């Protein structure tokens, strides 16, 4: 697929969000829009409502969420869910704990992450999802307070930058 053969506005979207041709095909398949994504430093990250829409379009059926671990006082929730799409099935875990989640709703976040991961896997989107990018699930574990504070600072910075990018866009388009 050649970039210059795409409609002009799609060319801009692909460039802006650094989409691969595979990701673009996925995007077109579900008739998505710019607002379906969060711009994570130039990477396309589908939002949770986008993943819900994709799941609905495809008729993915979800089983019951199984709580693997839950300690809401410490902000730790891990849950698992299985999605079925035709003859395909996929299970995924969603986890939220203070090192990868800073909002006050770890249960909802764990549920979102499990859901998004199942849809990502089944539809082969080739992208990380918003609920995953909201924390750094892939950071090496550390028991040291300083390392945790450093990680928290990084997350705060990344969020501040993402918000400022959106703010700059609004300023410039006014």
């Amino acid at each position, binding site marked *: 697929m050649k970039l210059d053969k795409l409609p002009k506005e799609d060319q801009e979207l692909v460039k802006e969000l650094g989409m691969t041709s595979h990701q673009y095909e996925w995007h077109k398949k579900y008739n998505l829009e710019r607002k379906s994504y969060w711009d994570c430093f130039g990477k396309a990250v589908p939002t949770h409502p986008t993943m819900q829409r994709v799941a609905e379009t495809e008729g993915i059926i979800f089983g019951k969420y199984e709580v693997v671990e839950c300690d809401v006082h410490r902000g730790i929730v891990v849950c698992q869910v299985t999605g079925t799409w035709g003859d395909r099935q996929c299970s995924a875990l969603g986890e939220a704990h203070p090192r990868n989640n800073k909002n006050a709703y770890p249960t909802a976040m764990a549920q979102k992450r499990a859901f998004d991961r199942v849809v990502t896997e089944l539809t082969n989107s080739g992208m990380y999802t918003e609920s995953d990018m909201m924390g750094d699930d892939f950071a090496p574990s550390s028991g040291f307070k300083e390392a945790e504070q450093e990680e928290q600072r990084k997350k705060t910075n990344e969020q501040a*930058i993402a918000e400022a990018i959106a703010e700059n866009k609004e300023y410039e388009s006014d």
Partner: protein
Amino acid sequence: MRVIENLRSSMFKSYCMGLRTSRKKQLEYDKTCTQKKIWDTKYIDWGTKHEVNGVAKWIKLNRKMPKYILDEQESFVIPGWHDGIGLSTTPDGLSGTCLIEIKCSAMGKNTYSEFPEEHLWQVYGQQMIMSHQGHDIEKTHLVNWTPKHTKIWEIQRNQDYEDYMGSLLKDYIEGLVHDKKLTPKPEKYQGKHKIELIYNNGDTNGKI
């Protein structure tokens, strides 16, 4: 008598050339560890608030995440650089060999029409200190951010200027430590700079 321990790069223009604050007045402040009183802090507040927008603009354009930004900012110090007085700097970011300095000008009303040479003291000062601290520094991107328009200048490292600035800083330190008499306005730098406007998304200097 207690004097300051480090000269900050953001003040090099005053230490070296008496810009904004005369060398004599600055010396008085530094000998007594006092600060010039700033009555109108709205420009500083604006710059502090919108530094994140300048950093975000740079990231969006370059698609890289720099180090030492925002909450991760760090101060770099050359302790006891001359006669026991050190040099310090806190860059707004560092990406590879490129330092990032954010300037949110005129409360967002307009960008600079020309590159303000006044900022060269800070820019070259940062390059000098960061290089001394083992970072391989080639250039600085000075991001002049306003809500509507942004300009980015690229300033290449200039060893000749660093030598010139270094001698003026040593001169100032000797005034601080040994009461050496300072020349109020030293001779200006005669060499050339490598400064290039590499980004400009407005054509009216940002004037709305």
